[in-house]
């Protein structure tokens, strides 16, 4: 069944209780009472992690929580609760056997119930054993076996890599936490729980091929007894954004108010990246590879290329086959390419090509990288390699188009057009660039036909302006100025901010002796590009044709101030000044 939420939003499935070691009896009773009122609002199968704010090997708080859970389960027969108490051990002897034995004993009625019902237990105690510095591996293993013998599956929590392999010693059903922090603290334990919780959640989605890899993960709560606050997830706890005060549990089912928004994608990404030694210690390298690879793709789809590249890198590190290594590096390279980190992209693609049986695919993306950094000669080389390799995973039309673009950029128009002509399904951009090639080869008539075909495909406004501009350019080249003006006017309507349209319009109006209109167009060009010397000079020429010689000189001078190399402006100034000097006195200004 697809609809797995007949009752609306999912309830919390995991609760982390950070107990306050200095809590007095009355305070603890109140806390447990509130916790008890929360139980019916948890998922019918829920996990409760219990840790102390003070890293002392006390289990009395955990025992109280287990008793509270047992009380709830006795009243309400639907639910199952898994309690995971953290146990800090400084040794394993008679005292521990006596104290710790109380925890599994509390599950005994539920074991009996499961036996009678031929079902599963509804209360599990799954301790997390955290050996303190100096505790021997023998003692740690004895502690773990103590719980295994009592039908519970313990986890082991180490600070740094342990000196022995817990899975080899105890079997695959043991869970191992490797905390890089050197000493125990509630904060680093919560951080470990966060990353493991999120990783497991994402792994489940990956294995079930579920959509929405970056959607919020299974709901969890962190409850801080000392601060009397509830946090709506691990991330909110670590950001110190509390959801509500604990006293809100007195008024359930009223929904507690508080901040809930969170950047789940970033949290998922960073938490999984922090898994570090946990994967190898739990024999989950392959699972880790899959998670990193799939997360990398999901993040890239969201435009989070930086994190996506990190995930692809992790996926590479955990790969056991060349095919997986190549896939990871391909994705990593693409992320760098999207970030315009061209050198890294090239380095990664080059490395990936060494693992892949499809060298053409890597050549193609190396070509794209070179193109992006305007190294067109190298791009042409890579694209040609890819073409020769006939890679099944490279879309041939895309390859031909990219190769043509590279050739156009080095003005090898004939070769470029030949590749564009090979495209099976020429797109509108392909037709357009076929026109550019024709134009580049001095054949405006053929180019005009291509641009006309591109226009018929109905390009969007930004492209429309560009196509019309080149139609105008061809018409100008053919001396068909009136038609050019019409095309360029349409171009400037499609994109009023495109400078080139006004510049060329000015030229065409000049050629058709419509000097006032030319001046108007050139002024619009200058509005967009105020430092354009050529447009000032062109205004000067139009003013000159209108007989406004002094104004023309002023414009030429303006042009020269911006670009002293404009020789024709200098020459025209000289010519006008000469003409002014030679002009009879009675034909001066105001004598018309």
């Amino acid at each position, binding site marked *: *069944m*697809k*609809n*797995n*939420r*007949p*009752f*609306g939003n*999912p*309830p919390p*499935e995991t609760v982390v209780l950070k107990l306050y070691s200095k809590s007095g009896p009355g305070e603890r009773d109140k806390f447990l009472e509130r916790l008890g009122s929360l139980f*019916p*609002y*948890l*998922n*019918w*199968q829920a996990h409760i992690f219990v840790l102390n704010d003070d890293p002392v090997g006390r289990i009395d708080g955990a025992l109280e929580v287990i008793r509270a859970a047992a009380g709830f389960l006795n009243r*309400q*027969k*639907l*639910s199952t609760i898994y309690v995971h108490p953290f146990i800090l051990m400084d040794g394993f002897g008679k005292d521990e056997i006596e104290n710790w034995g109380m925890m599994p004993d509390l599950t005994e009625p539920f074991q009996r119930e499961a036996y*009678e*019902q*031929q*079902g*599963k237990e509804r209360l599990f105690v799954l301790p997390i054993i955290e050996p303190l510095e100096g505790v021997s591996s023998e003692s740690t293993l004895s502690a773990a076996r103590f719980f295994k013998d009592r039908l519970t599956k313990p986890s082991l929590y180490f600070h740094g890599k342990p000196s022995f392999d817990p899975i080899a010693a105890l079997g695959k059903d043991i869970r191992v936490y490797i905390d890089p922090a050197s000493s125990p603290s509630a904060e680093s334990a919560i951080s470990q729980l966060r990353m493991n919780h999120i990783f497991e959640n994402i792994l489940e989605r990956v294995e079930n091929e579920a959509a929405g890899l970056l959607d919020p993960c*299974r709901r969890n709560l962190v409850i801080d007894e000392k601060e009397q606050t509830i946090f709506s997830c691990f991330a909110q706890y670590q950001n110190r954004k509390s959801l509500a005060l604990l006293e809100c549990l007195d008024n*359930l*089912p009223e929904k507690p108010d508080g901040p809930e928004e969170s950047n789940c994608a970033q949290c998922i990404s960073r938490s999984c990246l922090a898994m570090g030694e946990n994967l190898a210690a739990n024999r989950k390298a392959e699972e880790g590879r899959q998670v990193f690879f799939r997360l990398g793709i999901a993040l890239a789809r969201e435009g989070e290329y930086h994190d996506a590249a990190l995930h692809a890198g992790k996926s590479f590190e955990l790969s056991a086959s060349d095919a997986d290594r190549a896939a990871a590096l391909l994705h990593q390279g693409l992320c760098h390419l999207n970030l315009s980190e061209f050198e890294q992209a090239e380095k990664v693609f080059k490395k990936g090509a060494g693992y892949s049986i499809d060298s053409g695919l890597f050549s193609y993306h190396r070509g794209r990288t070179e193109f992006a950094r305007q190294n067109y000669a190298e791009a042409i080389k890579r694209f040609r390699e890819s073409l020769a390799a006939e890679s099944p995973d490279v879309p041939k039309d895309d390859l031909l188009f990219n190769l043509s673009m590279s050739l156009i950029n080095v003005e090898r128009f004939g070769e470029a057009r030949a590749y564009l002509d090979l495209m099976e399904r020429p797109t509108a951009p392909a037709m357009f660039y076929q026109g550019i090639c024709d134009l580049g080869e001095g054949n405006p008539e053929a180019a005009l036909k291509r641009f006309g075909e591109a226009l018929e495909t109905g390009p969007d406004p930004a492209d429309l302006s560009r196509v019309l501009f080149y139609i105008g350019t061809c018409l100008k080249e053919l001396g068909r100025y009136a038609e050019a003006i019409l095309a360029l006017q349409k171009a400037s309507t499609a994109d009023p901010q495109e400078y080139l349209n006004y510049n060329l319009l000015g030229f065409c109006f000049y050629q058709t002796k419509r000097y006032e209109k030319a001046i108007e167009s050139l002024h619009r060009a200058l509005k967009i590009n105020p430092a354009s010397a050529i447009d000032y000079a062109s205004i000067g020429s139009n003013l000159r044709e209108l007989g406004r010689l002094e104004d023309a000189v002023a414009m030429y001078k303006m042009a020269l101030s911006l670009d002293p190399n404009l020789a024709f402006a200098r020459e025209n100034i000289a010519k006008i000044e000469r003409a002014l000097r030679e002009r009879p006195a009675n034909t001066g200004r105001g004598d018309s």
Partner: protein
Amino acid sequence: MRVLLIDFNPFMAPVTPISLGYLGAVLKSKGHEARVLSLGSTTLFSPAAFRAYIKEYSPGLVGFGAYQRNIFHVNALATLVKEAAPGAFVVLGGPQATFLPDDALAALTGVDFLCRGEGERVILAIVDAIGSGGTTAPLQGTTSRNREGGYLTGPPVIPAANLDEYPSPWLEGTLDPADMDEAIMLTSRGCPYSCAFCYTPAASGRKIRAHSVERVIEEIAFVARHGSGRMWFADPNFSFDENRVGEILEGIARRDIKAQMWIETRADMLSKELTILMKRAGVYLVAMGLESASENVYPHLNKNLNPDRIRRAIEMAFEAGLDVELFSQFALPHERFDDAMKTLDFVKESGVKIRGNSNAQQMQIYFGSQISVDPAGYGIRTLRESFPPYASIGGEFETEWLAKPEIEKVKAAWKAQSLDGGKRVVS
């Protein structure tokens, strides 16, 4: 009346509640309002949310599908129903309820009625009785409590001779194929054989009733068009009538319905022509019951099918390009360790992959089977003195021929050969 029908499997992801779908369709056809919920191990809900849902919907009757593995949890849900809607009645249906002893009601505190037999007619009778305030008299096809602490059991219900009398849960909109990754279909009910371990013969009176070919093709076309196209046929013997199933498969192929179908049938109900037709119509897998490959065992099961016939059926299916699953069991009457290994060897040699449904399971003794009526007569030794009144022996037994440690050895041998670690959930 508003009726809520719930299927809850605490140990598996939720599946199509096809039987409840039938009840919902029948209720709707009589003007009642009916909702069908399918809950499973992966369904996220809290007891509080369940109570709130019941309170808001305020049903007059809540029905649950019950079987050995879920009945404890169903009773817990029933209790929550009573807390949230004290006026609501609760009925338990399904195979477990059909054969439960009356005094099971004493332990099932949240339950008012046990539905004995086919539910379509019984649920209408219950709804009518609740509506007219007359729940104190025995109702046809049910057991309920009386005021004196005893039980009222009505006469057995006569099921519809023509299954088409029941409206289709698919065509009438009670179940939506778009909600499901795989739809469960039911084109026929019952089984004429009398396998000693199975409750279906008793539940069906050893009779098969089937929907018409036209109705079946319409349902398949509808489900294929609106859903994923994957269909799992729950008929105990899909090909019991070769002509009928031939017409169905021809119809599917003729209408070019895109369906991927899983079917279950008996090996002696397969022919070469039929397997070819199945493949053409979109059947991808045929499941068959092997149970045991030992000549010391299978004659005692009343299945009337020997391994040679099953081997030929497997070959035919493979030749037609169909995948095959074999249901087999261990700890069967007269089965010793070597006999159990013979079954494992047979499956290995047959080419059937040992995974999913082809992982053997220990025989489960459920109410309604011949063995459950006389376990000692079949050499069954229960491993405990008593069971809750709503639970049958299940797997809590050993046999005269196979002690518990040996049963565990057989289980381990199968697991060792399994491609998926023996992941088959006992239902």
